[in-house]
């Protein structure tokens, strides 16, 4: 199974705070093959975000410490890779779509400035040369790829001038700037209204399929998992408790936690019985 674009092998992470050691990930393994759509689902505290941060090299150490396991990207071990080489991958070949809130955009620079800066540094790391004008052309190209109707106007706008849905589109555009092979999406659209969220998920899916990207969707929403992935890993308390093709796993979950989690989701068709129920393990 070495063909996977991203492969996490037996990853263990612990956090040391106030002299106490917490094992946050205990032997997590998962594969994201090229051109595939994989979801990592779990509730708060399950370890899904820590897994994502370990992959992206965003874990702060201390307090975090990777105590075991391997992170393989395109056959290369990310942990033993020289720092410079790792930087070359991050934000270029492997790219992230962050959750909307205003917090991921700088309020005092225009969208065009911010995207231009990202592109400039990505180019520099990869040893590419592009003029400012060429960069802005690329920025507008990507903005129209995320179906922004007036890319020039958006590029001139400050984040506060855009709606939540448009800001989320900008964040997707930022991730696409350097033509990545792997997109890691962290709960995109959860801060948005349900109709806007549906638009964003459809856009993301269309882009991933049209460009043959690999997508790793990190979410707590089982509905989002079903809409955006063909394979799913379910995490609970730092362990992958179950994984399999999304449709099969949802139809017949084997693990007790997954079963309880799926049973807890209210159904649009009704029939979810509220009132006394058994405790969730």
């Amino acid at each position, binding site marked *: 199974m070495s063909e996977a674009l991203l492969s996490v092998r037996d990853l263990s992470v612990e956090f040391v705070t106030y002299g106490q050691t917490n094992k946050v990930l205990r032997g997590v393994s998962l594969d994201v093959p090229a051109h595939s759509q994989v979801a990592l689902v779990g*509730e*708060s505290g399950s370890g899904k975000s820590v897994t994502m941060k370990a992959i992206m090299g965003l874990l702060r150490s201390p307090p975090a410490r990777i105590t075991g396991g391997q992170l393989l990207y395109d056959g290369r071990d990310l942990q033993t890779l020289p720092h410079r080489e790792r930087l070359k991958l991050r934000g270029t070949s492997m790219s992230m779509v962050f959750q909307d809130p205003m917090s991921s955009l700088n309020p005092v620079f225009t969208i065009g400035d911010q995207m231009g800066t990202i592109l400039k540094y990505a180019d520099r790391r990869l040893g590419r040369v592009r003029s400012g004008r060429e960069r802005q052309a690329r920025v507008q190209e990507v903005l129209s790829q995320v*179906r922004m109707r007036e890319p020039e106007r958006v590029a001139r706008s400050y984040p506060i001038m855009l709606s939540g849905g448009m800001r989320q589109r900008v964040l997707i555009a930022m991730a696409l700037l350097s033509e990545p092979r792997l997109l890691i999406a962290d709960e995109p659209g959860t801060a948005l*209204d*349900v*109709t*806007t*969220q*549906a*638009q964003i*998920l*459809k*856009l993301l899916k*269309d882009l991933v399929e049209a460009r043959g990207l690999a997508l790793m969707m990190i979410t*707590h*929403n*089982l*509905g*989002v*998992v*079903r*809409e955006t992935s063909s394979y799913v890993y379910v995490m609970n308390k730092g362990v992958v408790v179950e994984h399999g093709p999304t449709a099969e796993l*949802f*139809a017949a979950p084997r693990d007790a936690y997954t079963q*309880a*989690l*799926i*049973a*807890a*989701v*209210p*159904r*649009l*068709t*009704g*029939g*979810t*019985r*509220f*009132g*006394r*129920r058994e405790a*969730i393990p």
Partner: protein
Amino acid sequence: MTARPMLELVGLSKHFPVRSPFGRITGAVRAVDTVSLTIPRGGVYGLAGESGSGKSTIARMIMGLTRPTAGDILLDGENITGQAGTRAYGRKVQMVFQNPGSSLNPRRTIGQSIAVPLEAHAYPRAGRAARIGELLDMVQLPADFARRYPHELSGGQKQRVAIARALAVAPKLIVLDEPTSALDVSVQARLIDLLVDLGRQLELTYLFISHDLSLMRNFAEEVGVLYLGRIVETGPTASVFEHPAHDYTRLLLASVPVISAEEEAMRPRIELIDGEIPTAEKLLARRQASHLPQDP
């Protein structure tokens, strides 16, 4: 049915003035526009809508935090439009807010927080500690939680405390404003279980405000869909969900991420515009352009 409804809203409106930079009133935003609804005693009414639909403004008017521009609010048959916000009224209507993290005072213990409504309503001092223990028990929290502080509690536990505080004065109607939107799905399920059980035991009437249609389908008996301050569709939850008549309801239902093929089959199909799921404005504009009747 001879019983009086627990809550009745009749033509309720709230307009906010729009002012020019010099303070002149140049127009009005119709945040809530002639909304009427009726909730029977012990019923659960779901108010569904997205941001800007006016659902929170309705909640604020019912709680007496905002004065309506027009219309009446009848609680248990009594018109309370003028007296909303008074003590006597507060005894009958309570609210549970969305974010349990910010609705509890971090410097007060849980017991002190629950005691606030008891003090305000002159509950006998001698019985307060016992009442707090009883309330914590009702929301299935151990009695020693009274001595803890909010930061020691999980999100679900904090929301239980908020419910206990709302129940302190034995109200008849509880307004639930997105009570579970900040919680994990398993925690949400247990909190809704609790609300259902309490509703039965105490014969509570709920106004449940949410954007989560799947949850609404399973909790509310009747539903009203709000769009730009107006109820565009209303009826028993099951029939509105199975046969949505209004384009906006259809769009909302079509947008819900679901987890089974049965649910997917039930979702309305919305025609894409320019390869995209249309926004509500676009969808409704297209309906108008085609001169098809919409309002039933």
